[in-house]
């Protein structure tokens, strides 16, 4: 299979719909994750940590831009997709709908949300669609440092205070299950993609996530959750749970304020 738009158009309509959903989910999640990291450029515990999250925000935005550009093979105008959608059209994972309330949540975001997102990306990159398989390896190389930073901070906080450890536990319990459901779904549309060789199976990818996060979960005395079904309110069109990111984040993602300054 090649990466041409003809190849995409040759897919049966449901598979094409599912594949577009997957790419949009990856791109939107990266765009919103970049926004969430950017909230901490000035609030991180040290200058170095602020520089690191700044760099990670740039990574996520760059990856999102590359993923949006792939959508032209589906007949989309990537600029329209990036700049003209309402919050209700976003396919980003629901665990990023609200800002990270504290540094512990940022750390769990790096380990859990960014980690599951990278597994989903790895799955799509291992599929037969060349525009993705050609781009994903560089993205994953950049992502290695995100996970490393998150795991190092998680260990530090977990070992330093009972309060910090309790906060991490609470946050992991809050986000791990819905993030697995959202980014590695097992609904019929995803099943079609696996059958078509466009991505790896979500169960296989969840197993890889389990292996990656187990040392962090053990530090917090948590078990990897049992994931059954897609949960209440699953939106099969967007491939995410109910709701949408806060409007303020989407305004920033679209660049509304920056574009208002353009002079025609």
């Amino acid at each position, binding site marked *: 299979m090649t990466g041409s738009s003809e190849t995409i158009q040759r897919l049966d309509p449901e598979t094409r719909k599912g594949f577009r959903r997957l790419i949009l989910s990856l791109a939107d999640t990266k765009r919103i994750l970049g926004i969430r990291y950017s909230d901490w450029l000035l609030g991180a515990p040290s200058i170095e940590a602020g*520089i690191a999250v700044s*760099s990670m925000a740039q990574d996520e935005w760059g990856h999102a831009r590359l993923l949006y550009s792939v959508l032209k093979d589906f007949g989309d105008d990537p600029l329209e997709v990036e700049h003209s959608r309402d919050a209700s059209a976003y396919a980003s994972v629901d665990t990023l709908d609200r800002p990270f309330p504290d540094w512990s949540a940022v750390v769990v975001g790096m380990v859990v949300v960014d980690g599951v997102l990278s597994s989903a990306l790895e799955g799509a990159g291992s599929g037969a669609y060349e525009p993705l398989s050609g781009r994903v390896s560089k993205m994953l190389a950049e992502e290695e440092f995100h996970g490393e930073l998150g795991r*190092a901070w998680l260990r530090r906080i977990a070992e330093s205070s009972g309060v910090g450890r309790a906060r991490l536990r609470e946050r992991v319990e809050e986000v791990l299950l819905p993030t697995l459901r959202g980014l590695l779904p097992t609904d019929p549309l995803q099943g079609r993609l696996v059958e078509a060789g466009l991505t790896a199976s979500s169960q296989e990818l969840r197993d890889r996530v389990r292996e990656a996060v187990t040392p962090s979960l053990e530090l917090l005395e948590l078990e990897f959750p049992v994931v059954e079904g897609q949960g209440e309110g699953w939106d099969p069109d967007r491939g995410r749970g109910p709701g949408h990111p806060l409007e303020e984040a989407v305004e920033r993602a679209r660049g509304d304020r920056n574009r208002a300054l353009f002079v025609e």
Partner: protein
Amino acid sequence: MMERTYDVFARKNRGDALCHVGYVEALDDALARVYAWKTYDEEKWFEMVAVPRSAIIPVNRADGPFAGARPESEPERSP
């Protein structure tokens, strides 16, 4: 939690001299690795290493950024 200073050295190409490019403050080695890579990523480095400043042994100077690790009993050596 106490941070310590790590000095960062890097070379652009295989065979180049390893140069001191800066420092980072980090809680441990794992964080120092990420901070060093993310802070000094303006170049495409062939190799980068971070060294705890406390592990650097000054040889001939009693002043400058590395002097703190110098054993007090050691006299300054003339160049």
